[in-house]
């Protein structure tokens, strides 16, 4: 049973939620407390899978509570449910909250947010891995992109277009921006799969706060264990995959999601290089020695692949489900058994059609292309055949190279 803890200083809010959610009783074990201190006491007694907290509370506020929870019980999913927070307070939530819901929030939305997060457990079955993912505080980003973004934002004449272009150049910054823009707290309460839109919704001031406020991003170390991945190459490959997936998409909504899936599909490597550099190095070594695909070696060493880790984080952040699925299964599209033609299928086809010399991000031969062929196309009801797919993707690759 999912254990959910609700914290709010207003008793009627808790009573309202308790009665409204009583139908969840069979699925959820819910506890309701009126302060951060009481919340921590309940955690001491028995940890929770999910915590939902108000932001403004006397004494310990929501940001402080979530910070403490993230340190002691990092695998817990952290959701904020608040009426309003000043920008400065909202900014304190950025490193510690997975999702932000705004009062008044319909219980259905709350239930679906929690259910979605709980379903992510299947991506990272091992609680230790979830704990490690939950502990990630400083998000690793590409040093070059980070520096340029800071430069551009320091300029008063920065345009959203300039900013969006740089955001797109790093998957972690992209994902964080989408997380914030998707959250009702910062902006609109609707899923956004378009980075340009996300940047303009957030606005330049919020972007400046996000990028220049110290505790959110940190540049990836240039050398050391993380040095075994060439992130510039990896990023170039992601952009090529994104362009290919976008070209194959059937409609504009899917095109946005396919593009995003392409941009973000290897985000797991950013986290692995930063959080488990030693394990990643070991996985590379095993893959080379035993001539097996790197993602399989990752599962063996770490317990999960970069695809699973990345998808888990994107899911926690509330990114569109189709994008999360595409990222999770981009190495094994057949096992995900998609019966419709969606972002996963588009991404998988684009990856399969990527020229093999594009994969110099790792020692050669490590990255396995997904097994996709004409049969796969007919199974997902793709609106084109293999020849046409090859043609469309080849055209795009030529364009991007030119």
């Amino acid at each position, binding site marked *: 049973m999912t254990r959910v803890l609700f914290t709010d200083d207003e008793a009627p809010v808790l*009573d*309202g939620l308790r009665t409204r959610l009583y139908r969840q009783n069979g699925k959820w074990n819910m506890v309701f407390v009126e302060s951060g201190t009481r919340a921590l006491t309940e955690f001491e007694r028995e940890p929770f899978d999910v915590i939902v907290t108000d932001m403004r509370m006397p004494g310990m506020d929501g940001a402080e509570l979530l910070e403490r929870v993230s340190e002691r019980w990092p695998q817990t999913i952290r959701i904020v449910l608040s*009426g*309003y927070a000043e920008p400065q307070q909202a900014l304190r939530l950025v490193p510690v909250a997975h999702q932000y819901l705004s*009062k008044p929030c319909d219980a259905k939305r709350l239930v679906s947010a929690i259910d979605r997060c709980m379903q992510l457990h299947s991506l990272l079955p091992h609680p230790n891995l979830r704990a490690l993912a939950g502990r990630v505080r400083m998000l690793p980003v590409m040093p070059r992109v980070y520096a340029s973004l800071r430069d551009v934002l320091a300029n008063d004449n920065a345009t959203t277009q300039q900013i969006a272009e740089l955001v797109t150049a790093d998957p972690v910054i992209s994902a964080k921006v989408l997380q914030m823009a998707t959250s009702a707290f910062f902006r609109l309460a609707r899923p956004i799969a378009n980075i340009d839109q996300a940047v303009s919704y957030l606005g330049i001031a919020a972007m400046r706060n996000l990028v220049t406020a110290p505790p959110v991003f940190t540049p990836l170390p240039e050398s050391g264990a993380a040095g075994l991945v060439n992130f510039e190459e990896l990023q170039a490959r992601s952009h090529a995959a994104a362009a290919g997936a976008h070209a194959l998409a059937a409609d504009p909504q899917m095109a946005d999601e396919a593009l995003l899936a392409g941009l973000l599909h290897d985000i797991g490597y950013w986290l692995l290089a930063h959080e488990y550099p030693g394990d990643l190095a070991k996985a590379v070594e095993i893959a080379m020695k035993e001539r097996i695909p790197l993602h399989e070696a990752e599962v063996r060493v770490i317990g999960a692949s970069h695809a699973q880790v990345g998808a888990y984080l994107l899911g926690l952040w509330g990114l569109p489900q189709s994008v999360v699925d595409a990222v999770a299964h981009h190495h094994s599209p057949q096992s995900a058994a998609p019966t419709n033609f969606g972002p996963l299928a588009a991404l998988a086809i684009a990856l399969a059609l990527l020229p093999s010399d594009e994969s110099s991000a790792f020692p050669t031969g490590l990255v396995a292309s997904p097994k996709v062929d004409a049969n796969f196309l007919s199974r997902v009801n793709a609106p084109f055949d293999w020849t046409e797919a090859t043609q469309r993707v080849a055209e795009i690759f030529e364009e991007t190279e030119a």
Partner: protein
Amino acid sequence: MQPVTRSTPADQNSELRHTPPPLAADVTELERLRRELDVRNCALDAAATHFIIGDATKPDWPLVYLNRAVARDYGYESAELLGLGPATLFPVDLNQVQLEGLAQALTTGRELRTEMRGRRKDGSIFWVGFFIAPVRDPAGHMTHYVGIGADITARLEQERTQRQLQDQLYSEMQERERMAIELRLAQKLESVGRLAAGIAHEINTPIQYVGDGVAFLQSAQADLEQLLEAYRQAFKRLAASEPPAAVIQSVEEAQAAADLEFLSVEVPKAFERTLQGVERVAAIVRAMKEFAHPDTNEQSPADLNHALETTLIVANNEYKYSATVETQFGALPDVMCNVGELNQVFLNLIVNAAHAIQESGKDAASGRITIATAAARDGVVISIADNGCGIKEENQEKIFDPFFTTKPVGRGTGQGLAIARSIIEKHAGSIDLQSTVGVGTRFIIRLPVAGRGAAQSSKTPQVA
């Protein structure tokens, strides 16, 4: 004027030319006159002032005398100018037409002052001031005119600079005034913006549980409807003489499915909570309406205890996380005032108190804002006290100055207390403070019951 006329070189020359050779006694007299004349000429030539004499009987008023200053300042030799009209020196302002106007003026009037542009021989222009007077013969006809002038370019320049300075000063004053207005507006917008955000939070909280409550009641009603249906079925089955044991069992199952016990406890509470939430939203909206009393200059009687309560509701979100508010309201007479403005003063002071408490590190449990009111002779006293960080003695004088703020950038415009004081003074009242660092601050506002009219009526106590 007469001596000048008599000593013109023209007269002198003609005298020399037309009179017969003088006798010895006359020679001595002539010599004496000549010396006297030389002295005067020297004096005139030594002066920086311009002297000219012209013949008014000829058409273009030719010059018959000019002193050295004229020749020097206009860049001519004296001889070059003699016989030429004044238009040579003042071509811009003294053409033929203007000259006739001048003649007209001199003939009818006695003398005139004017400022003209003089032109030097090299064509450059400078400003001269001239005093021009007619010289008349015994019959009263104007025969000559005399002009006394000076280069006034420097003076005009100085005047122009002065005027510029004045204009600049004036526009700076206007700018300051505009800025003061803008700052007042900014302060107002800032407090409105902050309040709006706080009120959004205050309203969203009850809306959350009102929404949850109604949704719960809806689902409870559906559950109860099913239960009712089970009862109806049970009646039918009993009426059809089914065995009661089976019927009772199905009713009990339906009751368990509906969680009847839970519903009968929670449904009344949900109604209670929902009504209370709606009342809370209504109270906030009511208070907002009263708080934002439209700005007019008119004063009307108001209950300031009620005004303080309204402000406390509106500003609840500003202080509830940093302090507990205690009110000690005495019975107050209605006060003539602009209550919307006074609310702004109360709001500023309450927000300041909350900030001072945050600054001192206290929290909602230990922070305390005490608001007390009392009636006094002809007026009321309102005190707003906090147990916050206090104000340093050297700052106590300054805190009412516009722009003075100890808060970090972005926390305030520094106008709050300056505006508070100006509003209170507009109401013929006073605002003072007592503060000790580390102990707290107390603001004391005294307002006359008669409001703005109190200032006048205080001179005549009987009327008051």
